[in-house]
């Protein structure tokens, strides 16, 4: 899987204002900015992303996804 495909999966799974994905085809590292994270602590942000991508993760189609940063648009503002 190409990092751009992972990016598309994330964007389809939750509303995002920015997504960056790096990876080698097996392990991926994502930075996600989403209003869906508003009011959620970090654990719940990660749970939300993993939950929305559960089918892809469980099937092995998406093998390993690390979340580097999960921010709200306000937190991501410079």
């Amino acid at each position, binding site marked *: 899987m190409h990092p751009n495909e992972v990016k598309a999966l994330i964007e389809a799974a939750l509303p995002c204002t920015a997504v960056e994905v790096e990876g080698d085809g097996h392990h991926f590292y994502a930075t996600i900015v989403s209003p869906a994270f508003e009011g959620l602590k*970090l*654990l719940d942000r*990660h749970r939300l992303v993993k939950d929305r991508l559960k089918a892809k993760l469980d099937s092995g189609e998406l093998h390993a996804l*690390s979340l580097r940063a*999960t921010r709200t648009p306000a937190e991501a503002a410079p």
Partner: protein
Amino acid sequence: MSERNVQQEIHDTVTQNPVVLFMKGSASFPMCGFSAAAVQLLKNCDAQFVTVNVLEDQDIRQGIKDYANWPTIPQLYIKGEFIGGSDIMKELYATGELQQQLAALK
């Protein structure tokens, strides 16, 4: 022979110790890169913590995943609360929240 109550054992461990890291290997000899990273972050914070080596106990290895409803190891607990795995620890460390939470225990 009485059945082992793994969930109760885990609950006791995380509530009787302020900071607990369930990991693969030990703090001195981590057996996985993610566990090693978690230990390093706690050391960077000057934290006092206990570790549980899940590789030595298959019941705990599965039980801790059920306890937190979280599929991976390592897992960090502070005052009985599940904080997260190595990704979350890294992100909390980057924002300074991990340091704050651990310093608040001293």
